[in-house]
């Protein structure tokens, strides 16, 4: 099950990065995010998984689709979609992946066993949010407010005085 979810996620990511049609990319992104949500559920972080579905798929992916539509990206672009120097970028990504995987595989510090499943009750998450992580919560609220206002202002059509 985990393997399958992993493959779905990765495939969705690859498709999101490779396809020409932007809408297809956005949909593929949604698939990848859904796969990730499933992985979270596998790992026992149910709340995060559902939050992932709600926020990412339900909001972020939709906003991306809206942005695609607003920027006339609906049609398949005629010219090339990859930049002229795309091997360089691919090489960089490959380098980063190789370094990361080398670290992971050769690390001696990573725990090897499989501990028992922890209890991640939502109530406990709520408790933590309200006590220990109260300040980050409020800051996040402020951040979201600012982002909301900022996005509105940036994307707003400029008023021209007649």
């Amino acid at each position, binding site marked *: 099950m985990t393997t399958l979810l992993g493959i779905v996620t990765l495939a969705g990511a690859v498709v999101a990065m490779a396809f020409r049609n932007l809408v297809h990319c956005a949909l593929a992104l949604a698939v990848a995010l859904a796969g990730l949500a499933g992985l979270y559920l596998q790992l026992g972080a149910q709340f995060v998984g559902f939050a992932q579905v709600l926020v990412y798929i339900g909001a972020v992916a939709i906003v991306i689709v809206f942005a695609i539509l607003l920027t006339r990206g609906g049609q398949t672009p005629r010219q090339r979609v990859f930049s002229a120097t795309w091997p*360089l970028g691919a090489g*960089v990504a490959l*380098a*980063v992946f190789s*370094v990361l995987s080398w670290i992971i595989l050769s690390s001696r510090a990573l725990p090897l066993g499989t501990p028992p499943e922890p209890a991640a009750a939502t109530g406990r998450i709520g408790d933590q949010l309200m006590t220990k992580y109260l300040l980050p919560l409020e800051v996040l609220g402020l951040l979201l407010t600012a982002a909301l206002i900022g996005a509105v202002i940036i994307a707003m059509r400029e008023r021209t005085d007649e």
Partner: protein
Amino acid sequence: MRWTVEYLWLIPLLPLMAAGLSALTKRSGRAFAASLAIGAMGLALVLAGMAFAQAVLHPGRCSVNFPWMQMGDSWLKLGWVLDPLSAVLLLMVSFVGLLIFIYSLGYMAHDENFTRFFCFLSLFAAAMLGLAIANSLLLLFICWELVGLTSYLLIGFWFHKPSAAAAARKAFITTRIGDLAFLLGIVWLYARSGTLLFYDGGNGCLEQSGLAPLAARATGLGLAASTGIGLLIFCGAIGKSGQLPLHVWLPDAMEGPTPVSALIHAATMVAAGVFLVARVYPIMTPCLPVVAWVGAVTALFAASIAIAQTDIKRILAYSTVSQLGFMMLGLGVGGVAVGMFHLVTHAFFKSLLFLGAGSVIHGCRSEQDIRCLGGLRRFMPITFATYAVGMLALSGFPLLFSGFWSKDPILEAAHRWNASQGPFYLGLCAALLTAFYMTRQVFYVFYGRWRGHPARQDVNRPQDPHESPPIMTVPLMLLALLSILLGFIGTPAWPWFQAFLEGRPVGFDISGITQPQMLGLLALSSLIVLAGMALGYWLYGRKPLAGPGEPDALERFQPDLFGLLRNKYFVDEIYHWAFVSSTARWARLCDWLDEWVCRGMVELVGYAVVGLSWADRFFDEYVVNLGFDRLCRRLTEGGGLLSCLQDGRLQHYLRIMGVALASLILLLIWGCRLP
């Protein structure tokens, strides 16, 4: 009359103030300047007379000293002294000076620088009187130098004449050489005895305690200190009194006006040298032989030159040199009194002769060559009479005239001298020649026919030479009278003068003359004088010259010898060749050095600096600037290259960040992994 000693300093001060005030007077204030000078001199004469009376009535020595300048712990003191020596000189200088001042009123009446003349004359009188009363060798030296300065100013009075200016310079430089030795002597004396005062209540340098340290020490040359000091001081006297090596300035000094020649170069300034030797006699005792020999040789030397001269004043100038030699001889062999007596009588008859010559020059419209004169006996009787008196006095005509009574003790002392009879014979020859040349001069000028140049006579009033006005002849007569009378105060029968100087009582004693030795000497000197005069008459009196172009009688007889004497033994030429031209060559060499070497070096340094600066500029422009400019250009290009990194392309930035991420991780891991 004790107050005369306290106020002795007034005597030089009065003419000094007259000189100062005359210096501020305009050229037109002639009467004012003249009256100032003569008034001051008259007052000084009165005071000098009173001082003389004081010295006669109260024999002895009174000195007044005062501290002048402090040098560390010791004080330099100055002062004045009234003793027979200074009293005699004071009276003589002020009297003769006054007469000559009065004479100058007439002589310089036509000169436009009348005021300046009297200013300088007063200054000279002040300096000479100060010299007479000085009790300190330093004060004497100061007055000595002042006298030399005024001599320079007065010789070069007509400075626009090149010969006068050159003569003044020559006088100053020649006396300077003597003065340098004099100054060395003073310094040495001060170093040895610690004082420059003559009489200081027992501590003066002429008194016992002062002289003792001088005699003891011997210097490197084997001389005692006193001998060395005495010789150096005598060098000063040689310069000032025109003795043999440094006599060359005195004949040339005749370029000055005749009153100047009379006052300065006959009676007083040149006598200062003799006075100096007399004053420091206790110090001079070891070198008296030198003094005597120098005097004797000078006397004969100058007399021999005088017989071949043709300028009326030059004959008298060489005669002065010769008589100064006699005075030095007298000081050397006979003592202070002998030399000083001849100095006093000489002052009177020599100034008489000079003033008479001045009268002749004035009457013959500035003619000075004796070959162009003649027969003036008829035209200028008073001048002739007084001149004859002076000539007889100078020759030493027996019995009547002062020259006889003053020259004789000198010859007598020379005869008695133990060291050698040389000076005695030299003196005898000089006396013979003195009589000879004076006779020659009188016959040339006053006898025979008038050989005067026609152009010398006034075209409007073509008349013969005329007698001088009374203002000039009265002093002549006075001086003539004294030339006769003064002799009688110093005869061997009644040696009042000598006794006065030596401070002892005296009485009339005919045996002084009738002593066989003295009588023999008197007869010998009379014979010499008469022989000289006879020779002169035989050569010049019997057949006087017909015209100015005719050769001299002696010249016909011995032309080569005459030529040598005429040219003063070529001493001037020798000096010029030995010293003057070499100095001029040295000066030219130094000038060349300065022009080429020093200036060349300076210019070389200048060029070097200019070259350095050019090289520096070259370096700055082509190396520094260029290098810097190139560097900046490269930097700009490099910057341009580097700015290509900032191409505004987001993905490029991100790629670089990705690479950086990977590298950092690797670095960290390897850093941690290293032992």
